[in-house]
Every structure is written in C-alpha cells, then in structure tokens.
C-alpha cells in the first residue's frame, strides 16, 4: 500500500483517539506528542491503525519511532 494511503488511515486513527485534533491540519512530519497524545494514546493510535489496515506486527516494532512518518514507514514495510 502507498505511504499516502497509510497516512490517511493513521489520521483516521488519530481522530478516533484524539477527537479534539483537526486531522486535516496534521502533517506527516509532526509527532504525536505535539498533538497532545500521551504514551497510552500513542499506543492506541498504532494499534487502531494496524487494525484498520489489517496488519499484525509486534508493537515493539514501533519502539524507535519519532514522528508520524516513522510510524507510517514501519507499516509500509509490513506490506513489502
């Protein structure tokens, strides 16, 4: 799946977990902390994205991610 499509799914997940965030204004370079997500929220966003995408990866695969793009890249790799 294309990176852009996965980013759209992640934005959907962000909207589910952080209803107050305007996801239209979210850019891929941003990190989730700057959107007000605590560690539990960030994990929820990862899990919800994977569920929507139908992919299964150990959560620790997302251990080093620093921004949304890093997270998307891990999911893109899962499709290869």
């Amino acid at each position: 799946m294309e990176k852009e499509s996965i980013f759209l799914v992640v934005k959907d997940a962000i909207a589910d977990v952080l209803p107050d965030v305007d996801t239209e204004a979210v850019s891929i370079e941003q990190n989730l902390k700057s959107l007000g997500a605590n560690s539990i929220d960030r994990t929820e966003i990862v899990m919800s994205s994977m569920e929507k995408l139908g992919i299964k990866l150990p959560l620790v695969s997302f251990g080093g991610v620093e921004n949304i793009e890093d997270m998307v890249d891990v999911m893109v790799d899962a499709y290869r």
Partner: protein
Amino acid sequence: MQPVGIEMLNVFGGSAYLDVDQLASHRGLDKTRFDNLLMKEKSVALPYEDPVSLGVNAAKPIIDALSDSEKDRIEMLITCTESSFDFGKSMSSYMHDYLGLNRNCRLFEIKSACYSGTTGLQMGINFVLSQVSPGAKALVIATDISRFLVAEGGGVLSEGWSFAEPSSGAGAAAMLVSDRPYVFQIDVGANGYYGFEVMDTCRPVADSEAGDSDLSLLSYLDCLEQSFTEYQKRVPGADYLESFSYLAFHTPFGGMIKGAHRTMMRKMRKAKPDIIEVDFEERVFPGLVYCQRVGNIMGATTALSLASTIENGTFDTPRRIGCFSYGSGCCSEFFSGVVTLESQQHIRDFGITEKLNQRYQLSMDEYDALIEKSATVRFGTRNVTLDTTFISEARESVNMPRLFLKEIKEYHRLYEWVQ
C-alpha cells in the same frame, strides 16, 4: 495433584508517602490528562529504610503467625529485587537473620526487573510440588525501592522518563508458599510465559535508572497478549472474559493497566467501550486500590495487586483470579489461582489498609530534602550512621514494630527494631 500456592501474603507499603498530584505540579510536568494516568499516592523510602528493612517488615507478621515448628519448615528464602546493594551477598542473608529462621534454609536472591516477584513465587511453587522435602515451605520476599534520580544526559532512554518519578514507589510483598494455599491456590500448570530481548527500562548504573517508557508500554502489551495466548494453549477453553472473576496486573501506573485491559478486551472479545469500562471497574479496579497508594514497587507490584484484589473483591464463592506479571528486558507470565472467603479473611488479618492509612504524608520540601539525604546511603557506602532525627514523624507513623537501617559499618548493614 496436591494443592500448592500462597499460604500467607502480606504487604508493607513503607512509612511515608507523597501525593503524586502535588509532585507533578512541583516538577512542572504537563498535567493535561494527568488524571487519566490514575495515580494518587506513592510510598517513599526514607534514608533509614532499604529493601531489607521493607522486606522484613512485610514478612514479620507472617512469621509471627506461625508456630515454631511451622517456622522451622521454611527451607527456602528467596529475595526478589532490582534494588540490591551488593553484587555478591544476598539480601536473604540479612532477612533470614532478622526473621530468626532455621539455618537449614536456602538463601538467595533473584533479579528479573518487575518480573522478579513472580519468578520467586513460581520457584517456590515448583519446590513444593517437587516433594523433595515434603511439608517444606518457601518464603518469597519481593522488595524494591526507587530512591534515585533519572540517569543524566542521554537521548531516547530518558525521553518521557519524567513520569517515572510520580509512579515509582517503595515497598515489599512477602509470600509464604506451601502445600496449604489458604490465600491463593495456584492452578498448577496454568502458566503462559513469554520473553525476549528488548532494551526498554533498566538499571545500568548503581543509584539510578534509565528507560524508554514508550517502548516499555509496547513491550508490556505484546507480552500480555502473547503470554495469555500461551496460557490458553495450556488451558483449553480459557477465556479472557469468562474464566477470571478478577485480574491482577503488574501495575506501573493505573492508566497503563486500563489501556492494557481495553486492548485485551477488544482483541480477545471484540468488546465495545461501554462494556470494557464496566468490566474494568468490576474485574480490574479492586487490584488497583493498593497500587494507587503505594506506586510501582517493581518486583513486588504483581503481588501488591493480588493482595489488593483479595482485600477488595467479593468472594462469597471461590473465585479465580488471573495474574499478569511483566519485567523489563523482558520476561512475562500469565498465571491464575483460586481465592476463597477464608483467603480474604487471612489478608484482612494483616490490616494492610490500616497501615497504609497510618503512613506519614511528606511535604514537597521534606521530599526534596529526603532525596538529598538519600545520597548518604548511596550504593557502595562503606560507613555511615543513619540520622534518626530526620523526618522523625515517619518513624512513629505506622503502628507496628518496624525494622530500620541503623548503621553501615565496613559495608555491613546493621538494623534496629523500633516499636
């Protein structure tokens, strides 16, 4: 198969505590949604409290409740900790002395981050089940403190770590393991374990720790799912919702457990949010009560949550409790056992809640002074006499005889009983 499990379980949550909301304000932490973390209080070790004194204070009421002949059947004393002050000498040797146990007893110490208490419990259970010494008992003491500041400098391993301070507590849990499981009868063979190498949180230097809290949360969740899945393989028909009246989790902080439980309910049962919320209150919250008051006491936290569940649950008929233990690094285990009304009475006899209520509340000034003062007993201290006048109200707080560190003399720790 012969019964095995916990004959007696007691918790000692220290002599002083701090309001974590005040601490978060004091440290200038971002308090947006702080309430969601479900933290309330944390126990703080005084300079004259260490893992030995806390452990002995947890175990002493158990020993006092035994007859001499029963006491003499304790043939193994396992200390479970990540806070030891000596790489060679086991803290079990000190505890054995101050508890006055039989010398025909194995004394040793084990480490596996927050999984240590469960490791010790399982070793005790297997010792009893092996029947190499019929009727023998094992005393398992999980004890940990967090008397330190975050390792300075560094990148990933310290980011977001500031929340470790409000969540880290001090305390101990003592479990007498035998073939008379009055408090918690183990489901023998019902164990799902899961471990792998991950660098999430650790204590790589003597008086401090480092961690990547995000990675630790991710690893915890992976382990919960995998260890429960393994448990299901060994216990055909086991169901996350139906099989357990209560769930006792290793609890770094309450909000994390709420998230973990929500994830499991979604994955295992495709449960909706309102159902999950009610289920959390019913099956998980009883185990959170003590954890919210003591904080994360690492190796002893799973036992703390189990004690809290037994104290605060309803046991008009025997009930099964599912337990999940996770230790960074990492290793984890999902196991279970059965609790009765009699078990609850045994726990209540120790008056754990009353003793937590009697702890001295530290002001922020006292807490800051305490951190500074704790440097006098840092790792490797060769000689020191502890200042008994320091926050002396805490020495008079909890209404029971307590052991305190009195002096370190050529590295040898000397303790005293205070009424």
